[in-house]
């Protein structure tokens, strides 16, 4: 048989690699800043674009989609070519993918600090960027399948399956969760409301973790770990088994983010059950990775790359054990809304994603520059400082989460809350926040060791732009679907394989979402719940713009400790007009679901000007610009129209009078403020925000009053 000569494209791998390292530093720097802001609230320097609420999504997006995203693409482009024995399908498409992705990151870096956000976690980017993501992502998919189709190696290696599952599922997730109705170029409303929006969002959110932070990384693990150890993977059969099990189970677990919420109970239980089952395939992957090193642990001692990979896989094992535990209702009752969640995701992000990325970088750079790693010693130091960083990050966060949660729930013997003032529980954990930021700093410092080491390595070698390779051509065979050959048959047919994976993934999503989406009776309507007034609607959009949802939930769970503190627990029917939902996932500050009428208008005014005027010691940033910026009411008619299209019962033609109503309501609030000695003006942002906050949760209170 004639052997074909061809070459691998290393250039595209290099580009993605450099982008990944650059954005890792940016993303971690922003993370460090927001970590410090939690105990030095003035660290936004009075600049509205740098408040916690606005740059927290910048941190998560930079780390997930810029750092991790780019290294996934680097690793995929490197390993895919080699296991397929083929150059990437189309070099121009590779370049389009690269530059398109960086453009999206740039757009995110500009829009998020500007407050242009949908507020849906890890899907904050507005609709024009969502469209860009879809196009660029599809270009990646085309390149992926194009390369698989022209491969010279019949067998599709296990890593490639993981890449296929990643592409297929992320496509579906992104499309479904990003269905939104544009109001203007940079503003849109989710088509889903309240509970349905929450379910779609966390179906997306959970599976973004599953199919962006997990499956591609498992694929990378199955290529780079055996290569770095120079040993075959422990069990190839196990890799097949746990792959199928993982993609089948993961898609159902999303509702575990909504335990004790207004989501129907059966959906919550479904999420929990599948989360528990997920231990099996997750640990299958973890053990397969670790056992690959059986009998070769001496190499781990000598090789910093393997050290990174071992800690990464161990962190994966810990996080995937912890995840199912957190999905148990009794554990979730304590952990949810606290820093425990933050600790959990950082075991995954810093441990699993970060450490595996570093291992891969240390492995790929010497290969692609045809040399040896500049300094093993420095890589070892990097390993230890980042491992230490993870410990110093995670332990205080676990401590903080549990301590604060127990304080929230503590009653005195007389049956009243022992810590009725939320702020008291925050101040208790400030020392933990300080230690956490030191952990983050250690990890951050390690990045510079990596950069120096890799630059030195590259300088010592010569970049191999096109790496020569040769392989026998792919012999097209026509084996029919025979008994006992199904998986074999599938492995050779990537498109059919992808379709099958898509079906598997879709089933999970559909069965869960379709019922709550379609059955109206799942959400008992409450007659007292009214659509937002135009001023409240504008105020709600300011709440979204400022990222209040980053720190304040709007969901009272049915626990006595919560109903005592906040008021009546939340009902699904209260959220029917919430496009998007704003339940939040973290209580750095108190829940706001029943905030309305708790404090006078003047309290909110002064609190926004400087939270420490009203709550000494508060860690909330100041929002003085709300007091001076003029509310843009030109958008009101468009917003009313959009909401009406989504089913909110504004009368036809109301958009023409909405601004009159808005001004009337603003005047009432302003008069009240003036009466209390505040020289307020009715056309400012703050008036709308106060109107929104004062309305929160009051529909139900009114209702109860009338019943009594």
């Amino acid at each position, binding site marked *: 048989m004639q052997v074909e000569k061809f070459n691998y494209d290393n250039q595209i791998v290099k580009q993605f690699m450099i982008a990944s390292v650059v954005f890792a530093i940016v993303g971690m720097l922003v993370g460090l800043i927001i970590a410090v802001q939690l105990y030095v609230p003035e660290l936004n320097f009075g600049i509205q674009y740098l408040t916690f609420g606005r740059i927290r999504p910048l941190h998560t997006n930079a780390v997930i989609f810029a750092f991790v995203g780019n290294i996934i693409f680097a690793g995929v482009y490197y390993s895919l070519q*080699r296991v397929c024995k083929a150059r990437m399908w189309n070099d121009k498409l590779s370049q389009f993918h690269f530059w398109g992705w960086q453009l999206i990151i740039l757009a995110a870096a500009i829009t998020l600090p500007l407050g242009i956000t949908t507020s849906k976690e890890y899907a904050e980017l507005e609709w024009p960027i969502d469209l860009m993501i879809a196009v660029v992502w599809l270009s990646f998919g085309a390149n992926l399948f194009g390369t698989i189709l022209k491969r010279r190696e019949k067998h599709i290696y296990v890593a490639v399956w993981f890449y296929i599952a990643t592409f297929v599922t992320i496509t579906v997730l992104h499309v479904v969760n990003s269905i939104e109705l544009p109001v203007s170029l940079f503003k849109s409303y989710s088509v889903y409301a309240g509970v349905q929006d929450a379910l779609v969002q966390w179906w997306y959110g959970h599976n973004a973790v599953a199919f962006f932070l997990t499956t591609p990384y498992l694929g990378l693990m199955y290529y780079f770990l055996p*290569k770095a150890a120079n040993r*075959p993977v422990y*069990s190839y059969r196990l890799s097949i088994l746990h792959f199928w099990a993982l993609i089948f189970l993961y898609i159902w677990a999303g509702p575990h983010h909504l335990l004790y919420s207004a989501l129907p109970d059966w959906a919550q239980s479904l999420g929990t059950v599948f989360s528990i089952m997920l231990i099996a395939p997750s640990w299958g992957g973890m053990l397969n990775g670790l056992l690959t090193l059986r009998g070769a642990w001496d190499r781990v001692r000598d090789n910093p790359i393997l050290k990174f990979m071992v800690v990464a896989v161990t962190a994966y094992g810990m996080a995937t054990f912890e995840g199912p535990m957190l999905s148990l209702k009794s554990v979730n009752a304590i952990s949810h809304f606290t820093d425990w969640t933050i600790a959990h995701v950082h075991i995954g992000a810093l441990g699993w994603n970060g450490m595996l990325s570093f291992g891969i970088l240390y492995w790929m750079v010497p290969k692609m520059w045809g040399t040896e790693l500049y300094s093993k010693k420095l890589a070892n130091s990097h390993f230890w400082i980042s491992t230490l960083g993870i410990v110093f990050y995670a332990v205080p966060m676990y401590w903080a989460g549990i301590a604060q949660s127990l304080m929230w729930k503590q009653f005195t013997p007389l049956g009243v809350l022992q810590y009725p003032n939320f702020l008291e529980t925050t101040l208790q954990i400030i020392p933990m926040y300080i230690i956490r930021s030191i952990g983050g700093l250690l990890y951050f410092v390690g990045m510079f060791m990596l950069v120096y080491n890799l630059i030195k390595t590259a300088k010592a070698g010569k970049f191999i732009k096109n*790496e020569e390779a040769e392989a026998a051509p792919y012999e097209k065979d026509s084996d029919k679907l025979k008994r006992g050959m199904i998986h074999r048959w599938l492995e050779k047919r990537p498109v059919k394989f992808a379709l099958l994976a898509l079906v598997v993934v879709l089933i999970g999503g559909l069965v869960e979402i*379709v019922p709550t989406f*379609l059955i109206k009776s799942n959400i008992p309507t409450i007659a007292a719940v009214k659509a937002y007034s135009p001023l409240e609607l504008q105020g709600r959009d300011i709440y979204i713009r400022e990222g209040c949802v980053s720190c304040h939930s709007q969901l009272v769970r049915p626990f006595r400790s919560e109903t005592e503190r906040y008021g009546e627990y939340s009902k699904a029917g209260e959220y029917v007009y919430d496009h998007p939902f704003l339940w939040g996932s973290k209580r750095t500050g108190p829940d706001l679901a029943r905030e309305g009428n708790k404090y006078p208008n003047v309290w909110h005014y002064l609190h926004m000007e400087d939270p420490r005027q009203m709550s000494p010691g508060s860690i909330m940033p100041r929002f003085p610009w709300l007091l001076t910026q003029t509310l843009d009411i030109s958008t009101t008619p468009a917003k009313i129209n959009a909401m009406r299209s989504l089913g909110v019962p504004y009368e036809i033609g109301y958009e023409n009078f909405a601004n009159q109503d808005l001004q009337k309501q603003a005047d009432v609030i302003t008069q009240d403020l003036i009466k209390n000695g505040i020289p307020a003006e009715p056309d400012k942002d703050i008036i709308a925000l106060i109107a929104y906050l004062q309305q929160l949760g009051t529909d139900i209170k009114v209702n109860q009053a009338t019943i009594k």
Partner: protein
Amino acid sequence: MSVIVVLIGASLLVATGFLIAYLWAVKHGQYDDKYTPSVRILFEEEKKSENRNQKSEINSKE
């Protein structure tokens, strides 16, 4: 709202079909060759310049 019944029914049908196909595949010994692919990826670079490989071996012994 009967669309739900249709959707759930169809979904479960596909899910069941997939499950059967999967069980059938396992039962009929799909995973005959569960070793070669794992080893093959380790040998892909053999064709590259012999000099470099030797050099790296020397280096790694240091």
